[in-house]
């Protein structure tokens, strides 16, 4: 018996009892729809977290000067003077996991333009800093390595600074004054909004670290080194190697504390993403319970159907249907029921998650895998719960079945 015929017979049998078939499918429809919806919401939320992680930068490892204890007094972080430009060079040269580094010096001060002034933070960095943070310049350009080498009086402004000093005026090529030193504005950073930790990332001025060291801070050491690892997986080993390298370079004895602090800011975000995934899995498994209930519904209806059609089964056997022919027929009906239910459920799930996106403004995304798994699962439910009724039909004695009233 060919599959097309089996399928046609199954479809016709189901079409005879449309209402019943639809009600039977409902369990699977709701189950599949619910699974797809929850997965879509979960993946959407997880994508949002991933996006946040991405915005943190290019696999950043942040090395800050550490706190030191001098005669019992513990000074705050970035207080040591031991972190140097040579440390930064050593990190990028000796640790293969690290692709880029930018030495960093922090300062701050009152910035003046015309009649306006604004207090803001000043970070001294190199052009690589832009890549490491995945930041972009909106207008003008970033300063160059040449500017760094010559400690040029140039700066790039964050958008908040621009709004407070320039209003709607174009700041590029204008001069601003910090501590009475004129700096030429070469560019404006693209807006970055709040950092995941609430700081306004646009309220900032960037300039060559050499300029900050010499003209603003008057120091020859660094406050931090911003490093970029090759990949997310390289972060952990790179952190260990940086720590070892810096301890060696700073000649720390084993009993001495680190004079630096290493952080990778996406640790927290990653933990957040992980808990989101667990939540999604939990919700999806609750939703899949209704798939199970739907399967039991199919089994129930198939059992009723086998009893109702006892005579039909008898006739089919009398004209030559084997046990497996009869079994396949009823199995096909169960699988057709559950597959159509699954397909409708997928459509419903897609519409449902669209509705959630539109009405609640939640981001949703339906991974293709979830559709494939849902369809495969509903076919599986059909086979699993259709097997017993089909077996029952196949085991009927044709003589008894033909006599059945």
């Amino acid at each position, binding site marked *: *018996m*060919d599959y097309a*015929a089996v399928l046609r017979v199954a479809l*016709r049998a189901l079409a*005879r009892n449309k209402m019943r078939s639809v009600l039977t499918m409902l369990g699977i429809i709701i189950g599949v729809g619910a699974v797809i919806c929850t997965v879509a919401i979960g993946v959407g939320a997880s994508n949002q977290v991933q996006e946040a992680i991405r915005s943190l930068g290019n696999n950043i490892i942040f090395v800050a000067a550490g706190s030191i204890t001098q005669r019992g007094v513990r000074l705050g972080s970035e207080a040591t003077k031991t972190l140097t430009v040579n440390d930064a060079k050593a990190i990028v040269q000796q640790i293969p996991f690290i692709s880029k580094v930018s030495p960093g010096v922090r300062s701050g001060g009152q910035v003046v333009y015309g009649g306006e002034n604004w207090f803001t933070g000043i970070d001294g960095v190199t052009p690589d800093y832009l890549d490491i943070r995945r930041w972009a310049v909106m207008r003008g350009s970033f300063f160059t390595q040449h500017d760094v080498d010559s400690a040029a009086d140039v700066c790039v402004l964050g958008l908040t600074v621009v709004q407070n000093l320039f209003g709607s005026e174009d700041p590029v090529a204008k001069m601003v004054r910090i501590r009475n030193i004129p700096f030429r504005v070469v560019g404006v950073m693209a807006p970055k909004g709040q950092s995941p930790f609430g700081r306004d990332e646009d309220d900032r001025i960037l300039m060559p670290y050499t300029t900050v060291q010499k003209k603003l801070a008057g120091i020859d050491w660094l406050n931090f080194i911003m490093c970029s690892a090759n990949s997310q997986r390289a972060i952990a080993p790179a952190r260990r190697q940086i720590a070892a390298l810096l301890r060696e370079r700073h000649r720390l004895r084993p009993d001495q504390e680190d004079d630096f602090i290493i952080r990778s800011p996406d640790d927290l975000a990653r933990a957040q993403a992980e808990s989101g995934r667990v939540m999604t899995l939990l919700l999806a498994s609750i939703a899949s319970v209704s798939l199970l209930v739907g399967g039991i519904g199919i089994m129930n209806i198939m059992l009723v159907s086998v009893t109702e059609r006892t*005579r*039909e089964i*008898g*006739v*089919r*056997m*009398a*004209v*030559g*249907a*084997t*046990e*497996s*022919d009869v079994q396949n027929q009823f199995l096909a009906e169960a699988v057709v029921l559950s597959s159509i239910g699954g397909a409708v459920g997928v459509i419903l799930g897609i519409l449902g998650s669209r509705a959630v996106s539109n009405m609640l403004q939640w981001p949703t995304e339906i991974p293709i895998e979830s559709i494939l798994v849902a369809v495969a699962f509903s076919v599986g439910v059909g086979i699993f719960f259709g097997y017993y009724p089909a077996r029952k039909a196949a085991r009927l004695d*044709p*003589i008894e079945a*033909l006599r059945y009233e």
Partner: protein
Amino acid sequence: MTSGMLQLKPECQAQHDVTDPVICVENLHKVYDLGEVQVHALRGVSLKIFPGEFVAIMGASGSGKSTFMNIIGCLDRPTRGTYWLDGQDVSKLTKVELAHIRNRKIGFVFQSFNLLARTSALENVELPLIYSGVLHEERLGRAREALRIVGLEGREEHYPSQLSGGQQQRVAIARALVNNPSILLADEPTGNLDSRTSIEIMEIFQRLNREQGLTIMLVTHEPDIARFARRTVVFSDGKIRRDAPVESMADASLVLAGLPPVVENENEEDRA
């Protein structure tokens, strides 16, 4: 007769030709084990039916004729004894093998028609061909031809509910014919029909028997129906009591001609 199992008759064996029996049963026993009691439905039945025969099996209910019918139809297996169908020993085949035999060698006609509801006449007739793996195009052609033979040309797409009892039974006959069976088994085929329609059905059987040489075995308890057959076998208490040719076989087409004409064809449904 008791040692019949040992006397293998050559004409029942595998080298089969047209003059050998279609059905050859020897010392057939069927015992139903109902736990406490054992019911002996058949107590040593031996019978041969040759190609082209038209045999009426008669007997009261409980005489064993239904059990015999089920075994001949390969729906059941004998407890003891041997059954050769077309020279093949079918008494010890598996369920699957029996299903194939039913499909290819046996055509059933039942008292209650047993057509599939909400399935067209054509598709009902196609059913046995589906299980023998005949392709769609050929199925349609053969099913149409079978319906034509029983006089239902033009009713192919009718559902059983749109057909009269006699027409439904004719669809069932077409279904039984479609696989060119070795034998057609009819179990009280006129039991649910009025007398005129009954004779119409018998006319079809006689025509098939006469013109196509179809071997027919008919179970009935009505002597009026049995007289349309060529040979009568009477069962009682699980044994054959009488086996004789019908002395004055009635011709159904002549009987029909003698009946008053029917006014409207649709009236058949009321009488069915």
